[in-house]
């Protein structure tokens, strides 16, 4: 038995390291779990990108669930997720709200003109101050917010077809179950 001990210890270490590799390949190590899940979204009041004199507030978006997508023209990964978002947006069953993060309005408009604009509502946070209340630290990030203004799901990094099928759509389905 004692002769086997080093071998058992070696196997245990292999198991531990193997688990580490498996875990890291299935989880985004840079993603910080948001403490805001199942909490009311922070209050905000931001100008619309196309019409800065008009303000979008948390209250004005209440009543219907929406997907808040944080993006910027300087964010490369946003360009990666954008075509997917555009293709999926009409069938998701929630309002797609664009949150332009720390972007010059002219840059953002040019970027949307080039890549297309899937957003029903589009607001701009030039200073990034409101984004701190949302716990945003990089783009893209997306928040699923229900009709009562509670954050139900957050995805950090670009959406992939897999994430939309396995995480976003079930989260949206859970919303309608709750309200009906």
């Amino acid at each position: 038995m004692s002769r086997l001990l080093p071998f058992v210890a070696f196997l245990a270490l292999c198991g531990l390291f193997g688990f580490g590799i498996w875990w890291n390949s299935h989880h985004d190590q840079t993603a910080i779990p948001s403490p805001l899940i199942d909490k009311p979204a922070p209050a905000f009041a931001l100008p619309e990108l196309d019409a800065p004199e008009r303000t979008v507030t948390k209250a004005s978006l209440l009543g219907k669930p929406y997907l808040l997508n944080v993006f910027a023209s300087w964010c490369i990964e946003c360009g990666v997720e954008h075509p997917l978002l555009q293709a999926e947006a009409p069938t998701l069953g929630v309002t797609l709200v664009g949150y332009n993060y720390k972007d010059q309005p002219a840059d953002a408009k040019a970027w949307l003109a080039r890549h297309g604009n899937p957003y029903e509502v589009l607001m701009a946070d030039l200073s990034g101050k409101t984004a701190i209340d949302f716990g945003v630290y990089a783009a893209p990030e997306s928040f699923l917010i229900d009709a009562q203004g509670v954050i139900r799901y957050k995805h950090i990094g670009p959406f992939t077809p897999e994430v939309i099928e396995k995480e976003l759509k079930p989260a949206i389905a859970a919303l309608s179950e709750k309200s009906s």
Partner: protein
Amino acid sequence: MKPLLLVFALLLAAFSAALPAQAIEPLPFKDHAQELRFQQLTAELRCPMCQNETLADSNAPIARDLRHQVFDLMQQGKSDAQIKQYLVDRYSDYVLYDPPVNPATWLLWFGPLLILAAGTVVVVLTIRKRSRAGTPTTGTIDHGDDW
């Protein structure tokens, strides 16, 4: 020559007036003590974007924004604990370089102790077994104690 000088002086005045609004760093601290407090606090906070850097060290845009937020909260008279709580509410315990002891961090805090305890058990068992197997022939005198 004189009008040119005047224009130059005016331009200089205009630029220097615009400077405090533009030059974001260094931050306008009230006094040296506050600056020290700021440096100490931001060195204990972790940049959400870059795992191995403190807010004080990081050049990431979010770190700069959060430094300003910490600075603003300081100006509002918030205590260090309040500022930390403000960041934890938004970015979770991840931002603390000194994580609190709670069920989620028990393994982190006490894991090393567990490993030490396991190692001690193995060592004790091995020694006991060797002394029981009787290895006085190696020259050491067995006094009868397990150690």
